[in-house]
Protein backbone atom coordinates (compact mmCIF):
# COMPACT_ATOMS: atom_id res chain seq x y z
CA UNK A 1 0.00 0.00 0.00
CA UNK A 2 1.45 3.43 -0.90
CA UNK A 3 2.73 5.34 2.14
CA UNK A 4 0.28 8.25 1.71
CA UNK A 5 -2.71 5.89 1.87
CA UNK A 6 -1.52 4.05 4.94
CA UNK A 7 -3.56 4.51 8.08
CA UNK A 8 -1.70 5.64 11.18
CA UNK A 9 -1.67 3.28 14.17
CA UNK A 10 -4.10 5.56 15.97
CA UNK A 11 -6.51 5.53 13.02
CA UNK A 12 -6.31 1.75 12.88
CA UNK A 13 -7.06 1.26 16.56
CA UNK A 14 -9.97 3.70 16.23
CA UNK A 15 -11.34 1.64 13.35
CA UNK A 16 -10.84 -1.54 15.35
CA UNK A 17 -12.69 -0.02 18.29
CA UNK A 18 -15.55 0.61 15.85
CA UNK A 19 -15.60 -3.09 14.94
CA UNK A 20 -13.26 -3.28 11.93
CA UNK A 21 -11.35 -6.52 12.53
CA UNK A 22 -9.20 -5.96 9.45
CA UNK A 23 -7.68 -2.99 11.27
CA UNK A 24 -6.68 -5.38 14.07
CA UNK A 25 -4.95 -7.69 11.58
CA UNK A 26 -3.04 -4.71 10.16
CA UNK A 27 -1.92 -3.67 13.67
CA UNK A 28 -0.80 -7.23 14.40
CA UNK A 29 1.20 -7.32 11.18
CA UNK A 30 2.85 -4.01 12.01
CA UNK A 31 3.80 -4.87 15.57
CA UNK A 32 4.30 -8.62 15.97
CA UNK A 33 7.97 -8.68 14.89
CA UNK A 34 8.86 -5.43 16.65
CA UNK A 35 7.35 -6.73 19.85
CA UNK A 36 9.01 -10.11 19.34
CA UNK A 37 12.41 -8.45 19.04
CA UNK A 38 11.82 -6.34 22.14
CA UNK A 39 10.53 -9.22 24.26
CA UNK A 40 13.12 -11.74 23.10
CA UNK A 41 15.98 -9.36 23.93
CA UNK A 42 14.32 -8.89 27.30
CA UNK A 43 13.55 -12.48 28.36
CA UNK A 44 16.12 -14.33 26.19
CA UNK A 45 13.75 -17.18 25.43
CA UNK A 46 12.10 -17.56 22.01
CA UNK A 47 9.15 -19.61 23.17
CA UNK A 48 8.38 -17.40 26.13
CA UNK A 49 8.85 -14.30 23.98
CA UNK A 50 6.34 -15.59 21.44
CA UNK A 51 3.86 -16.43 24.19
CA UNK A 52 4.20 -12.94 25.62
CA UNK A 53 3.72 -11.32 22.20
CA UNK A 54 0.60 -13.46 21.73
CA UNK A 55 -0.67 -12.39 25.14
CA UNK A 56 0.02 -8.76 24.28
CA UNK A 57 -1.89 -8.99 21.01
CA UNK A 58 -4.74 -10.84 22.73
CA UNK A 59 -4.90 -8.03 25.25
CA UNK A 60 -5.07 -5.62 22.35
CA UNK A 61 -8.03 -7.63 21.07
CA UNK A 62 -9.91 -7.97 24.35
CA UNK A 63 -9.04 -4.59 25.86
CA UNK A 64 -9.25 -2.49 22.70
CA UNK A 65 -11.68 -0.06 24.36
CA UNK A 66 -9.17 0.69 27.12
CA UNK A 67 -7.02 2.60 24.64
CA UNK A 68 -7.64 6.34 24.71
CA UNK A 69 -6.28 8.56 22.01
CA UNK A 70 -4.20 10.61 24.46
CA UNK A 71 -1.04 8.58 23.96
CA UNK A 72 0.57 7.03 20.92
CA UNK A 73 -0.62 3.54 20.14
CA UNK A 74 2.98 2.28 20.14
CA UNK A 75 3.46 3.60 23.69
CA UNK A 76 0.37 1.73 24.84
CA UNK A 77 1.27 -1.59 23.18
CA UNK A 78 4.90 -1.45 24.35
CA UNK A 79 3.71 -0.74 27.90
CA UNK A 80 1.48 -3.83 27.84
CA UNK A 81 4.26 -5.99 26.39
CA UNK A 82 6.84 -4.68 28.86
CA UNK A 83 4.58 -5.32 31.84
CA UNK A 84 3.82 -8.86 30.68
CA UNK A 85 7.52 -9.52 30.14
CA UNK A 86 8.41 -8.27 33.63
CA UNK A 87 5.67 -10.44 35.13
CA UNK A 88 7.06 -13.44 33.27
CA UNK A 89 10.59 -12.75 34.47
CA UNK A 90 9.44 -12.44 38.09
CA UNK A 91 7.51 -15.70 37.73
CA UNK A 92 10.55 -17.38 36.17
CA UNK A 93 12.71 -16.16 39.03
CA UNK A 94 10.32 -17.74 41.55
CA UNK A 95 10.18 -21.09 39.75
CA UNK A 96 13.73 -21.42 38.60
CA UNK A 97 13.51 -24.90 37.11
CA UNK A 98 15.34 -25.60 33.87
CA UNK A 99 13.41 -27.57 31.28
CA UNK A 100 14.27 -27.92 27.63
CA UNK A 101 11.23 -25.88 26.67
CA UNK A 102 12.33 -23.09 28.99
CA UNK A 103 15.83 -22.79 27.58
CA UNK A 104 16.90 -19.82 25.51
CA UNK A 105 18.10 -20.12 21.94
CA UNK A 106 21.66 -20.29 23.17
CA UNK A 107 21.03 -23.53 25.02
CA UNK A 108 18.87 -24.90 22.23
CA UNK A 109 21.60 -24.41 19.71
CA UNK A 110 23.68 -26.94 21.62
CA UNK A 111 20.80 -29.41 21.47
CA UNK A 112 19.87 -28.73 17.88
CA UNK A 113 22.98 -27.63 15.95
CA UNK A 114 22.55 -25.94 12.60
CA UNK A 115 22.91 -28.25 9.60
CA UNK A 116 24.37 -25.52 7.37
CA UNK A 117 28.05 -24.76 7.99
CA UNK A 118 28.62 -21.16 9.07
CA UNK A 119 31.10 -18.94 7.28
CA UNK A 120 33.76 -17.21 9.44
CA UNK A 121 32.01 -13.84 9.26
CA UNK A 122 28.57 -15.24 10.13
CA UNK A 123 29.97 -17.22 13.03
CA UNK A 124 31.69 -14.10 14.35
CA UNK A 125 28.47 -12.14 13.97
CA UNK A 126 26.52 -14.79 15.88
CA UNK A 127 29.17 -14.88 18.58
CA UNK A 128 29.04 -11.10 18.99
CA UNK A 129 25.23 -11.17 19.08
CA UNK A 130 25.29 -13.87 21.75
CA UNK A 131 27.78 -11.90 23.84
CA UNK A 132 25.65 -8.77 23.66
CA UNK A 133 22.50 -10.74 24.40
CA UNK A 134 24.17 -12.30 27.46
CA UNK A 135 25.45 -8.93 28.62
CA UNK A 136 21.93 -7.48 28.31
CA UNK A 137 20.61 -10.27 30.53
CA UNK A 138 23.07 -9.23 33.23
CA UNK A 139 21.57 -5.74 33.41
CA UNK A 140 19.05 -4.90 36.11
CA UNK A 141 15.48 -4.88 34.73
CA UNK A 142 15.06 -1.11 34.85
CA UNK A 143 18.27 -0.66 32.81
CA UNK A 144 17.49 -3.52 30.46
CA UNK A 145 14.07 -2.19 29.42
CA UNK A 146 15.22 1.29 28.54
CA UNK A 147 18.40 0.33 26.70
CA UNK A 148 16.54 -2.20 24.53
CA UNK A 149 13.85 0.33 23.73
CA UNK A 150 16.43 2.95 22.84
CA UNK A 151 19.28 1.10 21.13
CA UNK A 152 17.45 -1.86 19.57
CA UNK A 153 13.92 -0.54 19.08
CA UNK A 154 15.17 3.00 18.45
CA UNK A 155 12.32 4.74 20.27
CA UNK A 156 12.61 8.35 21.40
CA UNK A 157 13.51 9.24 24.97
CA UNK A 158 10.09 10.84 25.41
CA UNK A 159 8.27 7.71 24.32
CA UNK A 160 10.43 5.50 26.54
CA UNK A 161 9.70 7.82 29.43
CA UNK A 162 5.96 7.30 28.87
CA UNK A 163 6.29 3.53 28.42
CA UNK A 164 8.24 2.94 31.62
CA UNK A 165 6.45 5.80 33.40
CA UNK A 166 9.53 7.51 34.82
CA UNK A 167 10.78 11.08 34.26
CA UNK A 168 12.77 11.87 31.14
CA UNK A 169 15.94 12.68 33.10
CA UNK A 170 15.82 9.31 34.85
CA UNK A 171 15.40 7.55 31.51
CA UNK A 172 18.44 9.33 30.06
CA UNK A 173 20.51 8.53 33.10
CA UNK A 174 19.46 4.86 33.07
CA UNK A 175 20.26 4.48 29.37
CA UNK A 176 23.68 6.01 29.88
CA UNK A 177 24.40 3.74 32.87
CA UNK A 178 23.20 0.69 30.95
CA UNK A 179 25.50 1.49 28.02
CA UNK A 180 28.46 1.88 30.37
CA UNK A 181 27.68 -1.44 32.05
CA UNK A 182 27.41 -3.17 28.67
CA UNK A 183 30.67 -1.59 27.56
CA UNK A 184 32.38 -2.90 30.70
CA UNK A 185 30.88 -6.39 30.28
CA UNK A 186 31.83 -6.63 26.61
CA UNK A 187 35.30 -5.14 26.99
CA UNK A 188 36.87 -8.50 27.70
CA UNK A 189 35.43 -10.09 24.56
CA UNK A 190 37.00 -7.54 22.21
Amino acid at each position, binding site marked *: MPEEFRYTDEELIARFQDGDEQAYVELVNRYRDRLMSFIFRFVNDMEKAEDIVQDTLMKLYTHRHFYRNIAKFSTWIYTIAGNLAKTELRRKKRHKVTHLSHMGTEEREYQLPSVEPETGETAQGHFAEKQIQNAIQELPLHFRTVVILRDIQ*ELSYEEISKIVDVPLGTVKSRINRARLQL*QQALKEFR
Partner: protein
Amino acid sequence: MDRYQFEDLISDFIENKLSMNQRKDFETYLDENPEAMQQLDSVKQVMASMKSMPEVSTSINFMKNLNKRIAAEKEAQSVVKTTRSFAGYTPLMASLSAVVVVAVVLLGLEFMPEATNQATFTPTMAEQQVDDLLPVLPTQASDELLAESEDDSTNVDEDMPNTTDFKDRIQLVGDRRP
Protein backbone atom coordinates in the same frame (compact mmCIF):
# COMPACT_ATOMS: atom_id res chain seq x y z
CA MET B 1 35.68 17.68 34.64
CA ASP B 2 36.35 14.42 36.47
CA ARG B 3 35.81 10.83 35.37
CA TYR B 4 32.29 10.58 36.82
CA GLN B 5 31.14 13.76 35.11
CA PHE B 6 32.69 12.49 31.88
CA GLU B 7 30.82 9.16 32.13
CA ASP B 8 27.54 10.92 32.88
CA LEU B 9 27.83 12.91 29.65
CA ILE B 10 28.97 10.14 27.27
CA SER B 11 25.51 9.38 25.83
CA ASP B 12 24.65 13.06 25.46
CA PHE B 13 27.96 13.64 23.65
CA ILE B 14 27.35 10.71 21.26
CA GLU B 15 23.79 11.87 20.59
CA ASN B 16 24.97 15.45 20.16
CA LYS B 17 22.86 16.84 23.00
CA LEU B 18 25.48 18.80 24.92
CA SER B 19 25.57 22.57 25.09
CA MET B 20 28.56 24.32 23.48
CA ASN B 21 30.30 24.83 26.81
CA GLN B 22 29.69 21.25 27.94
CA ARG B 23 30.95 19.95 24.61
CA LYS B 24 34.13 22.03 24.88
CA ASP B 25 34.81 20.71 28.41
CA PHE B 26 34.10 17.16 27.28
CA GLU B 27 36.49 17.36 24.32
CA THR B 28 39.17 18.89 26.51
CA TYR B 29 38.83 15.94 28.90
CA LEU B 30 39.09 13.51 25.96
CA ASP B 31 42.26 15.16 24.72
CA GLU B 32 43.83 14.92 28.15
CA ASN B 33 42.77 11.31 28.84
CA PRO B 34 43.46 8.73 26.13
CA GLU B 35 41.66 6.00 28.13
CA ALA B 36 38.55 8.22 28.11
CA MET B 37 38.73 8.30 24.34
CA GLN B 38 38.97 4.48 24.31
CA GLN B 39 35.96 4.23 26.57
CA LEU B 40 33.99 6.56 24.32
CA ASP B 41 34.84 4.47 21.25
CA SER B 42 33.90 1.33 23.13
CA VAL B 43 30.45 2.71 24.08
CA LYS B 44 29.90 3.79 20.48
CA GLN B 45 30.72 0.25 19.34
CA VAL B 46 28.27 -1.25 21.82
CA MET B 47 25.53 1.04 20.58
CA ALA B 48 26.32 0.21 16.95
CA SER B 49 26.35 -3.52 17.72
CA MET B 50 22.98 -3.33 19.42
CA LYS B 51 21.49 -1.42 16.50
CA SER B 52 22.78 -4.01 14.07
CA MET B 53 21.39 -6.97 15.99
CA PRO B 54 19.09 -8.91 13.66
CA GLU B 55 15.36 -8.51 14.15
CA VAL B 56 13.75 -11.56 15.68
CA SER B 57 10.61 -12.71 13.91
CA THR B 58 7.65 -14.63 15.18
CA SER B 59 7.29 -18.26 14.13
CA ILE B 60 5.28 -19.33 11.07
CA ASN B 61 2.53 -20.65 13.35
CA PHE B 62 2.15 -17.36 15.14
CA MET B 63 -0.88 -16.07 13.22
CA LYS B 64 -2.50 -19.50 13.23
CA ASN B 65 -2.21 -19.72 17.02
CA LEU B 66 -3.36 -16.14 17.49
CA ASN B 67 -6.41 -16.73 15.29
CA LYS B 68 -7.24 -19.85 17.33
CA ARG B 69 -7.10 -17.83 20.54
CA ILE B 70 -9.26 -15.10 19.03
CA ALA B 71 -11.81 -17.68 17.88
CA ALA B 72 -11.89 -19.15 21.40
CA GLU B 73 -12.31 -15.66 22.84
CA LYS B 74 -15.20 -14.92 20.48
CA GLU B 75 -16.85 -18.20 21.42
CA ALA B 76 -16.46 -17.42 25.13
CA GLN B 77 -18.01 -14.00 24.55
CA SER B 78 -20.98 -15.51 22.68
CA VAL B 79 -21.52 -18.00 25.53
CA VAL B 80 -21.54 -15.12 28.01
CA LYS B 81 -24.08 -13.30 25.84
CA THR B 82 -26.45 -16.29 25.64
CA THR B 83 -26.20 -16.97 29.35
CA ARG B 84 -27.47 -13.46 30.02
CA SER B 85 -30.59 -13.80 27.90
CA PHE B 86 -33.09 -14.41 30.76
CA ALA B 87 -34.02 -10.85 31.65
CA GLY B 88 -30.51 -10.15 32.87
CA TYR B 89 -30.18 -13.41 34.86
CA THR B 90 -27.96 -16.37 34.13
CA PRO B 91 -29.85 -19.68 33.86
CA LEU B 92 -28.40 -20.78 37.19
CA MET B 93 -29.53 -17.61 38.94
CA ALA B 94 -32.95 -17.77 37.29
CA SER B 95 -33.40 -21.42 38.40
CA LEU B 96 -32.30 -20.65 41.95
CA SER B 97 -34.65 -17.67 42.15
CA ALA B 98 -37.55 -19.80 40.89
CA VAL B 99 -36.80 -22.53 43.48
CA VAL B 100 -36.69 -19.95 46.28
CA VAL B 101 -40.03 -18.41 45.22
CA VAL B 102 -41.73 -21.83 45.02
CA ALA B 103 -40.28 -22.82 48.44
CA VAL B 104 -41.58 -19.61 50.04
CA VAL B 105 -45.08 -20.17 48.59
CA LEU B 106 -45.18 -23.82 49.75
CA LEU B 107 -43.99 -22.94 53.26
CA GLY B 108 -46.58 -20.19 53.42
CA LEU B 109 -49.38 -22.62 52.53
CA GLU B 110 -48.02 -25.15 55.04
CA PHE B 111 -48.14 -22.77 57.97
CA MET B 112 -51.42 -21.07 57.04
CA PRO B 113 -54.33 -22.02 59.46
CA GLU B 114 -56.81 -24.52 57.97
CA ALA B 115 -59.93 -22.45 58.86
CA THR B 116 -58.75 -19.65 56.70
CA ASN B 117 -58.32 -22.10 53.88
CA GLN B 118 -61.92 -23.33 54.05
CA ALA B 119 -63.85 -20.27 55.19
CA THR B 120 -65.06 -17.85 52.64
CA PHE B 121 -65.13 -15.16 55.31
CA THR B 122 -61.91 -14.42 57.13
CA PRO B 123 -62.51 -12.53 60.37
CA THR B 124 -60.20 -9.77 61.30
CA MET B 125 -58.21 -10.02 64.52
CA ALA B 126 -60.59 -7.73 66.42
CA GLU B 127 -63.57 -9.78 65.30
CA GLN B 128 -61.74 -12.94 66.32
CA GLN B 129 -61.16 -11.54 69.83
CA VAL B 130 -64.85 -10.65 70.20
CA ASP B 131 -65.79 -14.16 69.13
CA ASP B 132 -63.49 -15.63 71.78
CA LEU B 133 -65.38 -13.72 74.50
CA LEU B 134 -68.83 -14.93 73.44
CA PRO B 135 -70.16 -18.26 74.81
CA VAL B 136 -69.71 -21.16 72.48
CA LEU B 137 -72.96 -22.23 70.86
CA PRO B 138 -73.79 -25.86 71.63
CA THR B 139 -73.35 -28.31 68.85
CA GLN B 140 -75.06 -31.71 68.53
CA ALA B 141 -72.27 -33.55 70.37
CA SER B 142 -72.21 -31.12 73.27
CA ASP B 143 -76.03 -31.45 73.61
CA GLU B 144 -75.69 -35.19 74.17
CA LEU B 145 -72.95 -34.71 76.76
CA LEU B 146 -75.11 -32.14 78.53
CA ALA B 147 -78.02 -34.55 78.60
CA GLU B 148 -75.85 -37.22 80.22
CA SER B 149 -74.54 -34.82 82.82
CA GLU B 150 -78.14 -33.72 83.61
CA ASP B 151 -79.06 -37.32 84.28
CA ASP B 152 -76.16 -37.66 86.69
CA SER B 153 -76.91 -34.41 88.45
CA THR B 154 -80.50 -35.50 89.12
CA ASN B 155 -79.15 -38.38 91.09
CA VAL B 156 -76.73 -36.18 93.01
CA ASP B 157 -79.52 -33.69 93.81
CA GLU B 158 -81.56 -36.42 95.38
CA ASP B 159 -78.76 -37.32 97.84
CA MET B 160 -77.72 -33.83 98.72
CA PRO B 161 -79.68 -31.41 100.93
CA ASN B 162 -81.35 -28.42 99.37
CA THR B 163 -78.65 -25.85 99.20
CA THR B 164 -80.63 -23.10 97.51
CA ASP B 165 -81.04 -21.09 100.71
CA PHE B 166 -77.71 -19.39 101.31
CA LYS B 167 -79.15 -16.72 103.51
CA ASP B 168 -77.48 -17.88 106.73
CA ARG B 169 -74.32 -19.01 105.02
CA ILE B 170 -73.30 -15.75 103.40
CA GLN B 171 -71.70 -13.20 105.62
CA LEU B 172 -70.90 -9.89 103.95
CA VAL B 173 -67.88 -7.80 104.88
CA GLY B 174 -68.75 -5.62 107.83
CA ASP B 175 -71.69 -7.84 108.89
CA ARG B 176 -71.21 -8.32 112.61
CA ARG B 177 -73.81 -11.01 113.04
CA PRO B 178 -72.82 -13.88 115.30
